[in-house]
């Protein structure tokens, strides 16, 4: 199949690459760039494990063809923190509040949570539940995740 040229900025770095029309953004990230933080949990838009930021908004990377992302900026869990040496405050809060068990849903959760707080700096419990309803977690029961998002929101204000 004919490959198409696209430009993608991934975690702040610009790349030019050739992709096949069938390739998803998730595949490109995982297989070509070895950015395996975004997970394959279902491949059909049901679980949220593949969530990344596309031009600042959370998207399901398994549901996007790479060609549709031409010219856009992608941020994955690996590039979420603006500083290389330190974690993003939302990442720290997830650890602190015990919001991480198996960790498989975590990258997607943290991305969705960060996007929510970027938009609404003091989210209510209901806001958080709504924003995260597409990110499934089978381990935690969400309680600690919701708390972590609140703590993360407070920390994001401080920095």
């Amino acid at each position, binding site marked *: 199949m004919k490959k198409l040229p696209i430009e993608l900025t991934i975690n702040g770095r610009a790349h030019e690459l050739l992709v096949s029309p069938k390739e998803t953004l998730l595949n490109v990230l995982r297989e070509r760039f070895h950015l395996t*933080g975004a997970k394959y949990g279902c491949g059909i838009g049901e679980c949220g494990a593949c969530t990344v930021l596309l031009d600042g908004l959370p998207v399901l990377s398994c549901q996007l063809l790479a060609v549709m992302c031409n010219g856009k900026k992608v941020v994955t*869990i690996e590039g979420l923190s603006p500083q290389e040496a330190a*974690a993003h405050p939302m990442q720290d809060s997830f650890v602190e509040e015990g919001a991480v068990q198996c*960790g498989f849903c975590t990258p997607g959760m943290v991305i969705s949570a960060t996007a929510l707080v970027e938009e609404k700096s003091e989210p209510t419990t209901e806001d958080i539940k709504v924003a995260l309803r597409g990110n*499934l977690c089978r381990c935690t029961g969400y309680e600690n995740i919701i708390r972590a998002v609140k703590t993360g929101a407070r920390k994001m204000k401080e920095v």
Partner: protein
Amino acid sequence: MEKQNFNIIGTRADGCDEKDKVLGNVVYAEDYIMPDTLYCKVFRSAKASAMIKKLNIDKAKALDGVSCVLTHEDVPNNESAKNVVGQTTEVGLLEAKQRILATDRVRYYGEPIVVVAAETPELARDALELIEIEYEELPGVFDPEEAMKPDAPKIHGDNNVIANWALRKGDVEKAFAESDVVVEAEYRTPRQEHAHMEPESGLAWVDDMGVINIRYSTQVVEHYRDVAAVLGIPESRVRTIGTIIGGGFGGKEDLTVEVFLALCSWNTKRPVKMAFSREEMGFGRQKRHPYVLRYKTGATKDGKLTAMQAELISDSGAYVMLSPWVLLYSTVHSTGPYFIPNVKVDAYSVLTNNIMTSAFRGFGGMQVAFAYESQMDALAIKLNMDPVELRKKNFFKRGDETANFQSIPSEVMLDEAVEKAVEALGPKSEPSGKNMRVGRGFACSWQSYGRMTYLHDTASSWVGLEMDGSAVVRCGIPDLGGGQRESIRAIAAELLGIPLDEVHVISTDSQVTPLAGTVTATRALFMSGNATKLAAENVREVILEKAADMLETAAEDLDIENKMVYSSRQTDKKVELVKVIRRCAAEGISIQSLDTYKAAFTDEIKTNVIKDPVYNDWTFGTQAVEVEVDTETGKVNVLKHVSVQDVGRAINIKRTEGQMEGGAAQGLGFALMEDYLEVDGVPITWNLTEYLVPTSKDIPDSNSIILESRSGKGPFGAKGIGEPSITAAAPAVANAIRDAVGIKVLHLPATPERVFWELQKKHQS
């Protein structure tokens, strides 16, 4: 002397891999890559019951880029090992528990028939499409009670009942006749899907020594033995390397991808990768057993239980897998945490042409809890008695005898648990609308931790100090995300007096880490924790002895904290741990130890009536909920949830609460929404749009209260909490629905449809 004053144990310390998990650094099974890798896919049955008339793989084989196409003829031993993993006792009932690739007949929809490996996942998929198959359908049987009938189609052999256990204590007939009240009901529970977020996945390669390495997501490192048996090669030539697991809940306890990976890499001598799709997770792997439970319970008018009789029937699906064990759990746990003088239970697990069922958190303890706790509330209503009081009159006490004639070895803190749970619900919520009714319910449970004692369970662990005073623990304990590695790190750090982040745990490499058994049966902390404690205590003793020499004092007076060995009596007597280590090294004294913990051992069970001890101990707890029922639609919302569990001792508070909350969420899903449905053996809810698991929107305010009796058999008096956390959630919900709207919930999940029709029935009567 056992160390008693703790700096690390009982805190909320961060775990050893959480930071890497939030950063996206953890290399899960599917994240691992090797050059020159092939991709493996499985061709599965599209019929629930059929003969394979014709199978042609030639076209698939001929496709460019396809490296191997294997059928049952290419599998040296096509039935998975008869021995149950990691055990010393052979269990006849479990023979032929799983077939690797179908031979001439398929017995369930999704049964593996052919496995292929190709250069890309797309090519592997194309190869599957080229496989030609013709079936001749056979009559199937999809209801376990139908399957018990003499003329039912047989799945294997000549009897579909593959396990039968019973309890016999006292004389139930007489006791029912003398009871003041008797309640009777039939309950049904659904087939539940584990729905762990990480699909089964892994990578296998044959190394330069001719050893097959399988790096994959598993709860059972000891599966290298099954792989060796299937391939017909020595166990010493198969190495399993367990990864950090993206959730399992029992779903990664049976064989998953390892045999397929091993077959393909052995045949091609190339690395082979495989990951189940979510669809394949739906129809290609086992679920929780659906049960029919018929209960009859009697009591005196002042609320003393007199007798219980039950019939339990579980649907094993098309293969045996762990069904006999699951049924054994159900049987022993069927009385609930109550002393009942007269008990008669008959339990059956039956083969059908449905999807296989096997291990799932709760392991047979959960289905019976729904029944025995619904029965308790039914009795309370009939007796017009407070359900808390009724239960308090009947709870086991330490030393009481169970219906399998085993004495309860630890504290039973159920009086405290039930009081705290009900109290913690706080003031009752106001209904949110005119059709809304608010109700409350609770349920108490018991759940064993550790494997059945006739399996002679052991776990080994190795602890060694380094020259700089840091330490390494080697222990074959898969980490499911529950903090399994963290708890043994905490135990070693505590006993050796070194900071947590200077202890490194190497887990789950079958040729590197001492075998510690499976992460199943709520045994990880109990078994590996005890083994690590033994090994760390040995090292500690060596250090304290040598330090006592150096300080000219008695070892009994010494302790280690923050890498300093000091005397608790004379403050000037202290020496750096590193100096003691150096002295040991100079004198050739080993500061490493390998030790093995043995659980209780009993003889093999010889009869189907269980008359002897089967378990090490139990965890007891209560869950309480407040629900709101919409009487127009039948929709049930859980508003509040409380779980109170006696965990013996919490090694890490954060992890313990995490188990309690996560287990409860799965239990609430089981109560209200989760149902893996099949029509004549064909799955219809195999993806996460149809098979609903709780989302952030479905979860109530939750409160976890930890009790610590310090009476468990785990390290420092710990009990297990992984499975007990789920058990009582569903009956608590059922009892709350009854409290809200006065209907009996006999069939889980309590979906809006079911609740709606029950409400209709109630109005009509």
